[in-house]
């Protein structure tokens, strides 16, 4: 009833918030509209941001640009890493702009705010960047796919593999909020299970800390072989920089629990050399990745991060599923996405579980020393490939209510 009224009442100049043309009451099936909701100007804008939008556009172009004869649309917005802004934009996109799928989101708090909105309105979210493991655990929704990595993968990848390499005593420098603390807890558990010891931790306020010297000094005093950085973005970069400044490295080794290639680029190899990190993607791993990354580099002038590669891969898979299902109805598309394995440069023979988690190989990398780097962006040495089954928690471990049907 109110829908008819809404169409009937003429839009007065007061309606500044309403930017779509006269409201269409139902989802138009002919047009697939993809919304890239990311951080365009904040701490994560380099690792996602405009690069994610570019990746999305590349995926659409590679798919052919059209679905069932109509051009596929890509729109984007900046959520500024604020959960309320993200939620408002998502709501508006779903209610007024007929967006079918929202991708990227990049931070856990924004993803956590948007997922329930999407589920309520039966639209799909493809997460590339957020880390909260519970997104495919007790917070799972039937319309969500968690693509690139999650905190469990990072904790296990870096924690377990580094201990295996000999780094068995740890000290954590942790960002004091949900993400940092959960990453620290997860990694600590893994380290202990692998036979290592946690000698201590220092939790710093985040955001708002730019000087980590106190925390690094505490790490130094502890004598731990490995200093785990349970933080991200600018915090991690500052930690690494100051660790070099204060002579903490190279005597002790840093393990960045969430590090992107753009961070290493910002730091320079001199400061970052020796840093351990787990990544879902590295541009220089094989010919396929190189080919795609060079295309990306041409437009973006920076090599892609795993988040941006994940955005490409997730959208391509989504579009293929829509085509196979013949509709953009969320239930049908989700079923197709979970039924089809993902096979592209990002993931080989990876499957999306009933909980929405894409299980694929991860890689333990170490940052090269300047002398070992032969060309621009030659930053990582892949130390170990972690097969999907070990990289991610199993469906049983995740305990997503949707997946536990028995």
């Amino acid at each position: 009833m109110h829908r008819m009224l809404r169409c009937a009442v003429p839009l007065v100049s007061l309606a500044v918030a309403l930017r779509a043309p006269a409201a269409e009451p139902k989802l138009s099936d002919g047009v697939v509209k993809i919304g890239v909701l990311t951080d365009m100007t904040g701490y994560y804008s380099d690792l996602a941001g405009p690069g994610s939008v570019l990746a999305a556009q590349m995926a659409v172009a590679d798919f052919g640009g059209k679905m069932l004869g109509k051009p596929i649309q890509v729109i984007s917005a900046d959520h500024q890493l604020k959960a309320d802004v993200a939620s408002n934009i998502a709501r508006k996109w779903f209610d007024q702009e007929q967006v079918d799928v929202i991708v990227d989101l990049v931070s856990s708090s924004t993803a956590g705010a948007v997922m329930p909105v999407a589920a309520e309105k039966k639209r799909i979210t493809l997460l590339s960047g957020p880390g909260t493991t519970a997104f495919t655990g007790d917070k799972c929704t039937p319309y969500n796919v968690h693509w690139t990595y999650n905190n469990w993968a990072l904790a296990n990848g870096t924690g377990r593999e580094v201990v295996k390499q000999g780094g068995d005593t740890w000290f954590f420098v942790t960002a004091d909020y949900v993400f940092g603390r959960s990453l620290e807890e997860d990694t600590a558990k893994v380290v202990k299970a692998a036979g290592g010891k946690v000698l201590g931790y220092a939790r710093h306020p985040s955001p708002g800390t730019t000087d980590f010297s106190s925390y690094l000094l505490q790490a130094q005093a502890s004598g731990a072989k490995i200093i785990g950085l349970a933080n991200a973005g600018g915090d991690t970069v500052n930690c690494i920089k100051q660790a070099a400044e204060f002579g903490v490295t190279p005597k002790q080794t840093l393990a960045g629990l969430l590090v992107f290639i753009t961070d290493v680029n910002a730091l320079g190899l001199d400061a970052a050399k020796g840093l351990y990190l787990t990544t879902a993607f590295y541009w220089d791993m094989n010919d396929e990745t190189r080919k795609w990354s060079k295309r990306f580099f041409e437009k973006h002038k920076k090599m892609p991060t795993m988040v941006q590669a994940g955005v490409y891969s997730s959208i391509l898979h989504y579009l293929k599923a829509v085509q196979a299902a013949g509709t953009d109805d969320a239930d049908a598309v989700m079923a197709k996405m979970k039924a089809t394995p993902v096979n592209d440069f990002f993931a080989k023979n990876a499957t999306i579980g009933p909980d929405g988690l894409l299980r694929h190989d991860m890689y333990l990398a170490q940052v090269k020393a300047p002398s070992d780097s032969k060309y621009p962006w030659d930053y990582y040495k892949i130390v170990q490939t972690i097969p999907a089954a070990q990289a991610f928690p199993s469906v049983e471990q995740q305990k997503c209510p949707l997946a536990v049907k028995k």
Partner: protein
Amino acid sequence: MSARAIRTWAWIAMIAIGLVAPYLVYPVFAMNVLCLALFASAFNLLLGYAGLLSFGHAAFLGAAAYVTGWALRDAGLPTELGVLAGTAVATALGAVFGALAIRRSGIYFAMITLGFAQLVYFLVVQMPWTGGEDGLQGIPRGKALGLIPLDRPYTAYYFVFVGFLAGFWLLHRTIRSPFGHVLRAIRENEPRALSLGYDVSRYKLLAFVLSAALSGLAGSLKAVVLQFASLSDVHWHRSGEVVLMTLLGGMGTVLGPSVGALVVLTLENQLADFGSWVTVITGAVFVASVISFRRGIVGEVRDMVRRSFIGGQVS
């Protein structure tokens, strides 16, 4: 037209616009405007009428939002009780902060309120039940009067509109009461008010508590509308935003802050695609308002009206 007639017409116009608003604009936007308009109006009681600039009002808005969120989501309280709980907590905070802050005036007062707001921010970040960076998400809207589900945007809007009108009416009555007059006297010449025998501290404290309470109401309603509470509700930028709304709309006018809230939110909404230009333009508007537009939109309009209709009668 007598002043009284103008006021009556203004009320009618406001209610009329409020009633049709959700059909003209996106309902969630309209609800957001109402909540922040109430917040700004409550803030104005302190700034425009008592002459006290508080830089920490976000603490009341945010604390109420979180408490209401928790009450509705985790404690399962009905909607009205949740809103009441949030408002009550904000009032209590207002009493405590106010008692300590009003001992000082001017910039010191502003800094103390900022300090207290930062403490609240810190507590919100640290306490586990607030969800920290993620915020308190998935707050159910519940049912009005236990009967009418508030899930649909239109019903939720009218619920918030009622809340707004209630708060606004209370503010309006306060401003026009003898209490309000004494506040204005204190703002203009505190020593004289003291010499006339008024317990200035008590008046200031009452104004502070009332302002905090209604800011809390605004925060509680906002939590119900947007269905979550986040750190930006307690951040000092929010405190700065409400100062801008009040200044832009017109300090010391009844409708000014609401108009200011509408303008600022519309600006932010329209400029959202332009990233940081929002900040630049907000800042520029601030600067322009302070330099040449100190009376604010409503203030300027009121002056224009007064100048045109000198004497009060119009032909």
